[in-house]
């Protein structure tokens, strides 16, 4: 299911067209699943019981999982699997693939799914959340995933529940996140710093990984910049010709 050994093929290198399509489907299905897992993990980290101190073991395990996914996505360079023309589609309001993976278990267990995890269908593009957060790392090394005061308009496809999370975060004043998680002695619940360590821990990776994937923009940069770059490029073409 999420085995690392699963072969992924770079679309451009495939000679056989059918094989390319099949490869693309395999790639996208695995990528979708992986993206779902990442989104789910981020939601879990955010939606913790605010009244009682959260379970540190659980938080660390989820954070490690997020880091593993991000490292793999960075190595593959596949986190930018959304093609530019799809980026403009309507935002996702369901987690992709989760339903396929988990529906029978939900119905059976009667477990209430986390907000936003509906029994929806696989729709459209993969959320742009991941590329944005990786992008934040080089620009805001100190800020965590939760402090995305960056350009939200760049995130074309965006998960609704995560949308809600970030809206909530942005209504609070800047220092609020630290206060919420701060400890007298030490940052006990510095998930933002834990995640920063993980996101930042991707280190030079994000930039390098991007090189093979953003044909419109030369050189490494964040996906936000590449979005803008492509937009500029398109506008240039329209205006000049």
């Amino acid at each position, binding site marked *: 299911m999420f085995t690392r050994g699963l072969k992924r093929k770079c679309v451009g290198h495939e000679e056989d067209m059918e094989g390319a399509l099949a490869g693309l489907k395999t790639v996208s299905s695995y990528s979708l699943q992986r993206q779902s897992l990442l989104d789910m993990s981020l939601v879990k980290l955010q939606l913790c019981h605010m009244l009682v101190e959260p379970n540190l073991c659980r938080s660390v395990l989820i954070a490690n*999982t997020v880091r593993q996914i991000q490292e793999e996505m960075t190595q593959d360079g596949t986190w930018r699997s959304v093609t530019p023309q799809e980026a403009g589609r309507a935002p996702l309001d369901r987690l992709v693939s989760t339903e396929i993976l988990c529906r029978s278990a939900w119905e059976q267990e009667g477990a209430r799914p986390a907000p936003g995890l509906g029994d929806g269908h696989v729709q459209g593009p993969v959320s742009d959340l991941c590329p944005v957060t990786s992008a934040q790392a080089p620009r805001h090394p100190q800020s965590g995933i939760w402090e995305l005061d960056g350009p939200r308009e760049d995130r074309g496809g965006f998960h609704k529940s995560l949308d809600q999370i970030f809206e909530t975060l942005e209504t609070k004043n800047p220092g609020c996140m630290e206060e919420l998680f701060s400890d007298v002695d030490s940052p006990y619940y510095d998930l933002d710093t834990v995640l920063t360590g993980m996101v930042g821990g991707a280190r030079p990776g994000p930039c390098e990984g991007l090189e093979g994937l953003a044909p419109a923009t030369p050189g490494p940069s964040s996906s936000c910049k590449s979005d803008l770059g492509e937009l500029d490029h398109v506008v240039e073409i329209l205006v000049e010709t």
Partner: protein
Amino acid sequence: MAGARGGGCPAGRNDFQWCFSQVKGAIDEDVAEADIISTVEFNYSGDLLATGDKGGRVVIFQREQENKSRPHSRGEYNVYSTFQSHEPEFDYLKSLEIEEKINKIRWLPQQNAAHFLLSTNDKTIKLWKISERDKRAEGYNLKDEDGRLRDPFRITALRVPILKPMDLMVEASPRRIFANAHTYHINSISVNSDHETYLSADDLRINLWHLEITDRSFNIVDIKPANMEELTEVITAAEFHPHQCNVFVYSSSKGTIRLCDMRSSALCDRHSKFFEEPEDPSSRSFFSEIISSISDVKFSHSGRYMMSRDYLSVKVWDLNMESRPLETHQVHEYLRSKLCSLYENDCIFDKFECCWNGSDSAIMTGSYNNFFRMFDRDTRRDVTLEASRESSKPRASLKPRKVCTGGKRKKDEISVDSLDFNKKILHTAWHPADSVIAVAATNNLYIFQGKIN
């Protein structure tokens, strides 16, 4: 071959059966959160069985003495004492509640007529004394029978008060409170074989206490990184060696167990032994680390072995072999293909405990759907049993259960998708000598006895 003594062979003998004995707790479908049992522990003799719940209460059951006139009540456990151990607290500094849930209870060896146990919630450990009172004094000189003081000038004669029998009263009183030593949540306490000290472990630190001293504890393990951003591993369980008072082990969320010797240095950050099974690269997935996280570690009674519980299996380790476990027992391997769902509904983070029988010949651990598993180490056989009201007829023997993983489901089998993941057996305990086990199923405590037909 161990029979009824020594804990019994749960699956080794064909004529050995586990039978329902008792069930404690309400039958209501609506379970109050406070009634959920969070820890179960027999004392050293097995005559007392303590449970702690999420509401901070401790209930102690005592085994009835054998009574020829009532043969059926032989060995039954009845309520001995109930008390509120911990109350909910509020940490004003962090604006967070401190749960009153009892995480662990550990008995002290009995040294006099009274019984002592340690109970802990996330932050505070308490030493409780449970004592019996079956006599009261009558005939005081300075006060009346109803307690009112007598006028000294009216006293014309002196008498010696006499002790008269009264109905047995069991009193629990807190003798020590060990507080303010843990920043993180306490997951384990363990009494040392010297009977004077004990350890308490939270997510990042382990402290050593003297039972008499409450205002000081020694930090013996600290894995908190200087920069919390680098935190990737936490302590999940710790225990003292049953005989060597300088040795203890602690397990981690990365599936490792470290054995430490307190003689080597004051701060045992460097382990003496490091137990880890190399990962099988072919089964690696994004969930590998989570399912390798050890939820419980227990020394065998002999002290030669220890057992670790991770999400899908129980491993028995020889203390002399660090490279790999001696035995690996699969608890519910059929869940491996459901890990994503179990991650989503958080069940993958459930912390199952495990326990040895008295002779170390068998081990037991819980699973879902109110199933629990027993593994006989001698015969290599295992059995799955269920703690349910349906199989609760007095002395009825438990029928082995089977989970169907493949296509065709046989009669009496249950399919993986039909398992109830809300019915989880996290806490079990085995009598130190006899074939008696206690299984906590949410708010009910089941007691089963083994019988040879």
